[in-house]
């Protein structure tokens, strides 16, 4: 499955880029995070504390347990600070 992955705010800064396309067999967000974690130091730093990170799947807020069936976009970011 081809997934578009987006990173925002300090997650983007730690990963080192804002967007990428990955080929993955991950079935949940948690699976995907495990794959990304093992890739390089930037990703390891970004995902070190998953309680500090939020996720959106296909532009809807999700969780680590959210399934990725037929998904096209996953975004990782810190808790939002709008307003």
């Amino acid at each position: 499955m081809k997934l578009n992955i987006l990173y925002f705010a300090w997650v983007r800064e730690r990963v080192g880029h804002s967007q990428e396309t990955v080929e993955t067999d991950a079935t949940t967000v948690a699976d995907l995070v495990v794959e990304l974690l093992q890739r390089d130091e930037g990703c390891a730093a970004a995902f070190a504390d998953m309680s500090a990170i939020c996720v959106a799947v296909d532009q809807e807020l999700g969780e680590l347990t959210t399934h990725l069936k037929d998904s096209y976009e996953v975004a990782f970011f810190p808790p939002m600070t709008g307003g």
Partner: protein
Amino acid sequence: MVTRVQEAAFDFSVEVNTFQAKVKSAGALVTFTGIVRDDSGSLDHMFIEHYPAMTEAALQKIETQAITKFGLEDALVIHRYGMLTPGETIMMVATAARHRKDAFAGADYLMDYLKSRAPFWKKEISKDHTEWVQSKATDEAALAAWSREPEA
């Protein structure tokens, strides 16, 4: 219902007048304006990042919830992104209802949700220091309080 996400500044009075002109049956109109605050006295500017593909839909969802929950006649949300200097307006909400309590509560609810469910991130850039604004435990507590409330 109006939702706008933009980099450019907006004119608060023009927005309020336009909003008020459209709500014929409202007896109350409440507005809130968020402004870049400089607590340290050394803030150079604030940078607001957002998730363009998701932001507008997230704001619309929050607005729809507020309109339904408080029986609002209408609601308006304008939120800026990009580089803003201290004193500049970041965003505004306006709510219109038949009575003031719903208009106030609707605006309060909108702000609580915009704070932690709209995909914006603020970074403060000072002369010798750069820091992402962190969310607070009280932000989530505010949302939890709304969901404990009996339906209006």
